[in-house]
């Protein structure tokens, strides 16, 4: 599945901001903030111990039901789309530096990004835990928590972008990772996320991190395909992005019949569907942009995705958890304002204010 179109023939050095890409990143940022505020709003639908609040399709299924097969909702795609976009942007940034300033600068940038993400991971799952009197959760700091998974995904994106210059080969390697994951998951060769099999003493393995990294690597391939013709991104969309996205969706659908989606272990079915939907998301924001259509606030949000992520992971989460649950259950309007609107409004206001001053927070 490789032809000349997969070769790095574009102009990686010409790293410029794409408005449509910022729009897509904006949607991912919104999904991330929503998933953060929805986390503490869940409720056990079997025990009925807490009343679920807010739009349930925007909260992870496991916040309502922990069982088999897992309950998958719209937001379960959010994390994977985030990884995909991370890989997509990582390719542009890394190869841009590689072409302009050489390998040393590119790797210094990569080390800075991965290092900063691990520092954040240590703060979120180490330092804050310690301040709360809990022991540091090293598996979470290193590979199990979302920030650590971002760091690993970024690392794999840079390494693969550098050592495997052909986008088709990179995508194929990502597919190999999906297949390996499917086998490991199907055979119970390693410990899965739910507690059920934990007493069996299977070896621990970061199943989630494996497929999330593969999704990010897939993102790097899409990024290169879009610049197949540097003058006209439509060529890349038509010849690679759309076909691969559609086939990924089809493959994900078929895989779902064989192996259910699972959020925490990021099973292959969910990973393939995420790749497909992420490709379609890019194609639709590109098409909107071409047609002169623009959704307000998405671009500023997309430009400062990292800032949104930090605010969400370290600030909003704690704010929502601190709100008194009985009060929110008793007053739906207050719940809407305090949980549903205020954090989103805050994040959007910060992003718009920064955008007006042309400030982009980078790691």
């Amino acid at each position, binding site marked *: 599945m490789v032809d000349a179109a997969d070769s790095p023939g574009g102009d990686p050095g010409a790293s410029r901001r794409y408005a449509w890409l910022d729009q897509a990143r904006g949607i991912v940022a919104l999904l991330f903030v929503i998933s953060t505020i929805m986390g503490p709003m869940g409720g056990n639908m079997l025990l*009925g111990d807490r009343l679920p609040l807010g739009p349930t399709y925007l909260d992870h299924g496991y916040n309502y039901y922990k069982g088999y097969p897992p309950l998958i909702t719209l937001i379960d795609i959010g994390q994977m789309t985030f990884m995909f976009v991370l890989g997509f942007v990582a390719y542009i940034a890394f190869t841009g530096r590689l072409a302009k300033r050489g390998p040393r600068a590119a790797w210094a940038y990569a080390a800075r990004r991965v290092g900063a993400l691990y520092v954040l991971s240590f703060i979120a799952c180490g330092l804050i835990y310690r301040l709360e009197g809990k022991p540091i959760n090293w598996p979470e700091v290193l590979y199990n928590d979302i920030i650590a998974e971002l760091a690993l995904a970024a690392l794999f994106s840079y390494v693969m972008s550098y050592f495997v210059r052909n986008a088709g080969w990179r995508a194929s390697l990502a597919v190999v990772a999906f297949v390996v994951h499917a086998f490991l998951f*199907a055979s*119970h*060769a390693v410990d899965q996320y739910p507690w059920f099999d934990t*007493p069996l003493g299977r070896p621990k393995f970061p199943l989630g991190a494996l497929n999330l990294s593969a999704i990010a690597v897939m993102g790097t391939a899409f990024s290169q395909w879009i610049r197949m013709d540097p003058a006209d991104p439509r060529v890349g969309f038509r010849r690679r992005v759309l076909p691969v996205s559609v086939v990924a969706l089809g493959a994900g659908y078929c895989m779902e019949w064989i192996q259910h989606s699972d959020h925490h272990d990021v099973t292959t079915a969910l990973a393939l569907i995420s790749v497909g939907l992420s490709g379609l998301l890019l194609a639709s924001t590109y098409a909107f942009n071409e047609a002169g259509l623009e959704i307000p606030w998405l671009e500023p949000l997309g430009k400062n995705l990292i800032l949104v992520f930090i605010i969400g992971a370290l600030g909003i989460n704690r704010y929502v958890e601190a709100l008194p649950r009985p009060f929110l259950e008793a007053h739906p309007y207050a719940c809407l304002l305090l949980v549903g609107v205020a954090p989103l409004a805050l994040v959007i206001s910060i992003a718009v204010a920064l955008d007006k001053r042309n400030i982009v927070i980078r790691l």
Partner: protein
Amino acid sequence: MTEAAEKAMTHSNTAQVTRVYHRLAVGCLIAALALAWPFAIALQKGRRVDAVVERGVYFQGVKLLCLEYAREHAGRFPELRRGPGRIVFDRDGLHSSYRLAWSFGSRLWGAGPPVVFGHMDSNLGFALGEYLDDWRYFYLGYAVTNEDEARAFAHAYRIRAVCGFDFGSDLWAHPGHGTLGTDALCRLDTGLAAALIDAGVWDGAEEELAARIPILIERPRPGPEAGGWVAYLDGHAEYVPYPGPFPMTPEFFRILGRLEALDKWHGVWPQDSFSCCPARPD
């Protein structure tokens, strides 16, 4: 560019894109066919583990019943069933359910089987009918931590069961053959580990001792994942391979098998002929 040239270019582009779709679809199909057989083997292996996990889920339910009983009876675990041959707990003291899931009994779903909910995870249900199958589990009701103590238990059990006495108190054992080398087999109690430490029988940590005393033992199953679930006094459960460490040893299950066989003798083996049997208390 003329209209004809534009049309020809569009046609060529469409053909090119269609080729990409075809190649991707054929690639996926070839990969799926090539991987079908190894994946089936992986699935088969996974299903064997799933079966073990499913047994574990029911096992956790039974364990939970015992723990709930202990919580409601000042730490005392259920009594061993009176009468020979059934090495399980007496159901009389147990509730038929502890916490019912209203969603299963809602008007939409109909009454359905009773479902018990536990606290080891937020929402797992166990139908009582299945998990009170006393063939699947062994419950000794006493702290037995090795084969020597198991033999002492078997001896004491024979006497009490055949004579029809209850199992409400500690069992007498030959000196040094009781729980952890004491002179008695201690009734299971949530405070047992602390009591044994106070008595100077154990010099390690309380948690460590509680994690060594089995309270519920699944009858081991053969097969590639041969073994059985074991729940311990501290509440944790493990899947122990068979043959493996105590209690998953062939000798231990031979002892239990001989005790189960007492059931067949009951009735043809009159109590009066059992010379060592003390008078039955009123």
